[in-house]
């Protein structure tokens, strides 16, 4: 198991490196940090543009730029200068915002996962019942729901409810300190988490249902029942435990999508997290910030993949030998 862990860890490193390279190419191709500056009227002189390019290191070739970026990142731990003014320190901003976003992501994953497992198992056990049918329809609906639209809808409803109760806006009210009031903390988290969790929930619940159905129809379940185990023990020990295994893969596959979802959710609920930072960075064509965001996101995905693979090896006896 230790050897497997180490080997799997080592495989992740080249993937991360390649991922950073791909991301770097995409950003270099997709964004021009000096676009706004060049479009100024009157146009800046060639010397001014060259000076800016030199300051940002854009005067080198693409590979050299990548090398410098990686070197700067590894040796100094710095994501480089930002075009959003010298007061905008990317590293400081990141460390201030990263927890805000991760809190959202983790809460959403946990909530979506718990809901999905419960609904998936129930619908599988009551296959073709009215419960199953209704849950399936609801799942389809969430799957087809534009998240940004639904988030705005939730916001409108929430404000209406607060207004009709004659209270101040509760979910957007002043915070009682980050850790001070759990109530306000929860209030802040509630709607964004629901928004972010819903679309993943729909996919996961269907996946859990399918995987549970597969297990329910398998021979060892029949054996477990035949040898006289209690239905509960059959379901939980033999059924659910096995049916949860494929979920690990599914959840990790969706981490990237959830990170993408935070961009929308944070924007709508005015969260000062990484997502908002990312949107601002694209608007100002701040390539170094965009790169930083994509790097964090890719790292998160790779780490989740690693965890899933290890979990899989622990949970699934067929994989252990591999």
């Amino acid at each position, binding site marked *: 198991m230790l050897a497997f862990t180490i080997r799997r860890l080592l495989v992740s490193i080249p993937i991360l490196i390649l991922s950073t390279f791909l991301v770097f190419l995409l*950003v270099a191709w*997709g964004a021009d940090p000096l676009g706004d500056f060049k479009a100024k009227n009157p146009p800046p002189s060639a010397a001014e543009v060259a000076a800016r390019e030199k300051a940002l290191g854009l005067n080198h070739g693409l590979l050299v730029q990548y090398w410098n970026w990686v070197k700067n990142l590894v040796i100094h731990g710095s994501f480089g200068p930002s075009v959003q003014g010298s007061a905008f320190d990317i590293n400081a901003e990141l460390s201030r915002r990263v927890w805000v976003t991760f809190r959202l992501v983790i809460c959403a994953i946990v909530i979506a996962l718990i809901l999905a497992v419960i609904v998936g198992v129930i619908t599988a056990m009551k296959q073709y019942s009215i419960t199953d049918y209704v849950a399936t329809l609801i799942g389809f609906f969430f799957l*087809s729901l534009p998240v940004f639209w639904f988030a705005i809808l939730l916001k*409108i409803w929430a404000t209406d409810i607060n207004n009709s109760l004659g209270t101040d806006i509760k979910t957007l009210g002043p915070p009682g300190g980050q850790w001070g009031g759990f109530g306000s903390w929860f209030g802040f988290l509630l709607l964004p988490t629901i928004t972010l969790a819903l679309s993943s929930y729909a996919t996961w619940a269907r996946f859990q249902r*399918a995987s549970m159905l597969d297990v329910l129809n398998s021979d060892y379940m029949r054996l477990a029942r035949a040898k006289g185990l209690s239905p509960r023990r059959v379901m939980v020990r033999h059924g659910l435990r096995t049916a949860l295994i494929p979920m690990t893969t599914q959840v990790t596959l969706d981490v990237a999508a959830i990170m993408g979802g935070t961009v929308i959710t944070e924007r709508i609920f005015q969260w000062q997290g990484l997502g908002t930072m990312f949107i601002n960075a694209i608007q100002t064509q701040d390539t170094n910030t965009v790169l930083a965001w994509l790097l964090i996101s890719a790292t998160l995905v790779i780490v989740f993949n690693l965890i899933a693979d290890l979990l899989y090896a622990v949970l699934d006896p067929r994989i252990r030998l591999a």
Partner: protein
Amino acid sequence: MADNLPERDVNDEPVEPEVPPGGRGAEFLGVQGQQPGLMIDAVTPGGEDILQGGTEPPDREFAVEARNQWQLVFRRFRQHKLAVASLVVLFLVILFATVGPVVWKYGPNDFTNDFSVGPSLSHPFGTDSNGADHMAQVMAGTQLSLKIAFTVAIAGTFFGSIYGAVSGFYRGITDTLMMRLVDLVLTIPALAVGALLGKKFGNNWALLAIVLAGLLWTGSARVVRGQVLSVREKEYIEAARALGATDRRIIFRHIIPNVAGPIIVLFTLLVATAVLTETALSYLGFGVQFPDISLGSLVTAGETAATGGRGWLFYFPGLFIILIALTVNFIGDGLRDALDPTQTKARA
């Protein structure tokens, strides 16, 4: 403990063990042995089509010629009432978006003297603060969003399927390298890179569609690869090879037609994903750019209007996004069951 999984599960699925059971998208398809997702059976209980198909044993159904097979598919699809209803609704939405602008008296940029009026007979979806007819705007938005979504789905499924087919067919080092590239693309959130590139290419809808297809093809590649890995071991492939068929011929004449079912389903799912992604990007301002109208950019405009009591500017574009995504998803669900005969049979 009886926790050891029966060998049958492994044999059912001749995919290499390190492949996670079910790639992205596979959960909708139930294409792999691990997950018989029988959603449709809630509507049409399994076995019904066998009854309607006559007294022939099910095995004989696959021995009939290709034309009849498609008839069979059509018959199975017809039994999925929700899918048929969705097909009708989607057709109406497409009519609304294509014929609508030709017939309707207002264009999206025509200004009337009715400023910010609610839905009425003369303006079924109301007007915005400039007096523009909102139904004309929604028509234009639906048209562009549909156009982008179908382009993304066609390009993405086409590329992804060929990629997956080649990868699964050659296996070995080719497969490993190609699938590592897919893993690599999957580490990057499509929405984020879409926003970055959409900002640059959003003023041209075709380029935006190609960019989105370039981000969303991986699902097809993974599923088709899994299918091909299983199909390539079949006897008819061996027979074709024994007759001297080239790799190219085997892939295009024998393998792709035999994985056509999942590919068609993937296509419909990609339409839904593409609509949701494009409208989200356009909402953020990184997708379709002014003066083009997308359902997403209409939501942006309607967002502030809704809090000001002019909800119609917000609800109608959202409703149409849901209509498109929901109907397409239902159609895909119906097609999946219609195209995969093994799905309707209950497992022993």
